[in-house]
C-alpha cells in the first residue's frame, strides 16, 4: 500500500479494516473464492491437486486470523503488485479466515493484538523467538500464525531479502543470524505453531452457531465510563449482522448506536458501529456455544482508546452479568447496580451483605443500596436462580492501587501528518488480603475505581529534561495526551517532546489516599501502522 495522506486516511479509517470484509456474501462459495485466487494470485503462486480440493503454493501452507490474511493481502498489493478489487479482497479474507483460520484456543493467548490492546510488555515467550522475531514487532504477530516448518523458513528468507539490515542489528551481527533463524528458530516455530493441529481439526468439525439475537452488553469507554446496553444483531442476506446498541453510562447519560458486524472463522466477531457520532470498532471472540462474547471496543480512528466489552446472549434464561461497582466496603451503605437479563426473584448478595433499600428494579437492572457487615471476600450474586460467581468484592480497607496499563507508550504528533497517540488509564483497587500486606499474592482485587490523575518525571534525568512539562498532560478521566511533534527549540538540543513519565493514580477512601503508579514512555511517531503491530 502506498503511503496515504491525511484526507484519504480519514476515508479509509471510516470504512474500517475487516469491517469491510462483511460486505462479502456469507454465502461466499468456496468456488468463488478459489476463482479469485486463480484469477489474481496464480501469476506467482501455483495450483496443484484436484480442482475441487486444490492446493495453492504458499497460501495453503498457512493459517491466520482475518487480520493476518488482510495483512498478507496488503503486502501482496504493496510489494508484489497484486491487482484485486475491494470486493474480491473482502471475499478472500473471509474465505481464508474461515477455511485456514485459527481455532479459538490457538488465538486465545494473543487476543490483545487482535483487540489492539497493545500497551503491554509481552513476557514469557521463548527467548529465541523474542530475540529473532519480537525485537522488531510483537510476538503476537507470529503467535497468531500457523505454518509448516518449510513455510516458516520461507518467511525467514523473505525477511532476509526484504529487510537485509536484520542481520546487522544487535542480537544478530554477533552470531550466524541467518543459519540460526533458518535452521533453528524456524524449526522451533514449526514445532510451536504448526500448520496441522488437533485444535484446528476439532474447530473445523465443530458446529458453528449464528450470533444473531439480543445481547446484554457491558463495557467501558475512556472518558465516558462504564456502561450497560442491549445490542441486537440480526443476520442480513449478505451474511453480515445489522446491529443496534442502546444503553446508558453509569452517570445515566444515554448511549446509542448502530452498525454492522461480520463473523469470521465461526467465532471472530468484528463490528463497526457509529455510537453517538463516533465510529467505534468491536473485536470479540464468541464462546463455543455462541452464547457469550468477550473482547474490546475502541475508537476506529484511535485504536489505543478503548475498553473491555462483554456480551451475553439473551437465551430467555435469567442471567446476572455484572455488578457496578464491583466492590462494597464493609460498614458503608453503598449504591449498587446489578446488570442482567430476565431477572426475577430475591436478591442475594452473599453472606453478611444486606440489601438496605431497593431503589428500582426491572428485569434487566436492579438498583439498590447494600451494606456489608461480614468479612472480606469475593461473593457470588444471586437474583432468583441466576448467579454471578465472584461478582462482588467485599472489603474493609483499600490498600493498593494498580495503574493500568502498567507500561505504555504514547506518541507525539499533531503538527505533522502523524496523529498523536494517546493513552487511556484506569485504576484498579485491592485490599491487602488475609496477610494484611499489600502487594502480595493474596491481595483481593476490588475492581476499577475512580481516581485523580497526575504525571511526574520518571527519574532524575527526566526531571532535569523537564519531561513532565513538555511530553504531555493527563486529564481528569485518566487520558494522557502527548505533546506536539517536531523539534522543540525550548528543549535541550531542540529535542522532541518525548519523555519518560510516571503516571500516578490517587484513589481517596475515607479521607485516606492510596496511590498507584504506571510507567509511560512518550515517544516519537510510529510511522508504520500495520493491521497487526
Amino acid at each position, binding site marked *: 500500500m502506498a503511503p496515504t495522506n491525511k484526507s484519504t486516511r480519514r476515508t479509509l479509517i471510516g470504512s474500517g479494516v475487516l469491517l469491510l470484509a462483511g460486505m462479502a456474501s456469507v454465502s461466499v462459495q468456496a468456488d468463488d473464492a478459489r476463482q479469485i485466487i486463480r484469477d489474481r494470485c496464480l501469476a506467482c503462486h501455483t495450483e496443484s491437486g484436484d480442482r475441487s480440493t486444490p492446493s495453492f503454493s504458499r497460501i495453503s501452507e498457512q493459517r491466520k486470523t482475518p487480520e493476518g490474511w488482510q495483512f498478507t493481502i496488503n503486502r501482496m498489493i*504493496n510489494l508484489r503488485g497484486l491487482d484485486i478489487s475491494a470486493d474480491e479482497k473482502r471475499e478472500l479474507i473471509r474465505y481464508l479466515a474461515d477455511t485456514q483460520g485459527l481455532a479459538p484456543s490457538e488465538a486465545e493467548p494473543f487476543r490483545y493484538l487482535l483487540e489492539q490492546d497493545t500497551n503491554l510488555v509481552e513476557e514469557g515467550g521463548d527467548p529465541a523467538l523474542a530475540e529473532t522475531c519480537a525485537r522488531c514487532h510483537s510476538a503476537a504477530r507470529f503467535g497468531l500464525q500457523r505454518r509448516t516448518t518449510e513455510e516458516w523458513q520461507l518467511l525467514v528468507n523473505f525477511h532476509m531479502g526484504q529487510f537485509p539490515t536484520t542481520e546487522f542489528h544487535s542480537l544478530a551481527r554477533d552470531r550466524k543470524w541467518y543459519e540460526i533463524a533458518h535452521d533453528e528458530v524456524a524449526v522451533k516455530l514449526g514445532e510451536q505453531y504448526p500448520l496441522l493441529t488437533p485444535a484446528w481439526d476439532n474447530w473445523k468439525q465443530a458446529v458453528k452457531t449464528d450470533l444473531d439475537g439480543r445481547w446484554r452488553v457491558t463495557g467501558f469507554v475512556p472518558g465516558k465510563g462504564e456502561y450497560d446496553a442491549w445490542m441486537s444483531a440480526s443476520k442480513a442476506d449478505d451474511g453480515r449482522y445489522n446491529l443496534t446498541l442502546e444503553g446508558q453510562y453509569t452517570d445515566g447519560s444515554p448511549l446509542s448506536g448502530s452498525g454492522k458486524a461480520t463473523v469470521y472463522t465461526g467465532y471472530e466477531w468484528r463490528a463497526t458501529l457509529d455510537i453517538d457520532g463516533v465510529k467505534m470498532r468491536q473485536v470479540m471472540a464468541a464462546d463455543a456455544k455462541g452464547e457469550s462474547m468477550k473482547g474490546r471496543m475502541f475508537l476506529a480512528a484511535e485504536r489505543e482508546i478503548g475498553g473491555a466489552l462483554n456480551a451475553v446472549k439473551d437465551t430467555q434464561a435469567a442471567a446476572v452479568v455484572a455488578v457496578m461497582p464491583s466492590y462494597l466496603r464493609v460498614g458503608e451503605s453503598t449504591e449498587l447496580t446489578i446488570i442482567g437479563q430476565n431477572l426475577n426473584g430475591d436478591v442475594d448478595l452473599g453472606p453478611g451483605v444486606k440489601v438496605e433499600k431497593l431503589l428500582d428494579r426491572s428485569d434487566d437492572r436492579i438498583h439498590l443500596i447494600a451494606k456489608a457487615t461480614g468479612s472480606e471476600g469475593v461473593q457470588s450474586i444471586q437474583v432468583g436462580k441466576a448467579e454471578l460467581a465472584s461478582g462482588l468484592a467485599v472489603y474493609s480497607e483499600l490498600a493498593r492501587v494498580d495503574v493500568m496499563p502498567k507500561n505504555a507508550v504514547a506518541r507525539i504528533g499533531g503538527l505533522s501528518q502523524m496523529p498523536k497517540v494517546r493513552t487511556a488509564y484506569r485504576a484498579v483497587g485491592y485490599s491487602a488480603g488475609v496477610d494484611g500486606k499489600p502487594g502480595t499474592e493474596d491481595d483481593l482485587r476490588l475492581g476499577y475505581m475512580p481516581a485523580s490523575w497526575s504525571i511526574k518525571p520518571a527519574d532524575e534525568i527526566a526531571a532535569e529534561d523537564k519531561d513532565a512539562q513538555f511530553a504531555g498532560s493527563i486529564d481528569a478521566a485518566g487520558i494522557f495526551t502527548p505533546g506536539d511533534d517536531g523539534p522543540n527549540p525550548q528543549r535541550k*538540543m531542540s529535542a522532541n517532546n518525548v519523555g519518560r513519565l510516571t503516571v500516578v493514580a490517587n484513589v481517596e477512601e475515607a479521607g485516606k489516599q492510596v496511590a498507584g503508579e504506571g510507567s509511560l514512555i512518550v515517544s516519537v511517531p510510529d510511522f508504520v501502522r500495520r493491521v497487526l503491530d
Partner: protein
Amino acid sequence: MKHLKSLNKKAQLINQAVSPEEVEDVVAMQTVVGCTATTDPGWELDPFGGLGSLCQPMESDLYGCADACWWPAQVPDTMHTYPDWGKDVVKANEDWRKLDGIFEDGE
C-alpha cells in the same frame, strides 16, 4: 574498551553498561508492543531503557538515523518497501510537518 576514555555523556553511558549480557536482557524483553527492541540505536528507547542516547530531535537526521531499513516496523524502509516515503520531505529537520505514515487500516 579499557584503553578508551569516555569523553561525552553518551560514551559514559555506554561505559556504565556493565556487561553486554545485561544490555541484551533489557533490549530483548522490555519494550511495549509496537516498539522496537532494536536499540542500537533505538527508535523509542536507547539500550539503557532511557532516551539520552537516541537521535534527538529525530527530524535532525531522520534518514541517516533510520538508515533506510533499521527499524522497518516503525520507520518505513526506503531501501525496498517504501522507496518513495519521504521523497517530499528532503530535509526532515525543515519539512517535518509533511512527514506522513503508512496506514494499513484501509484497503
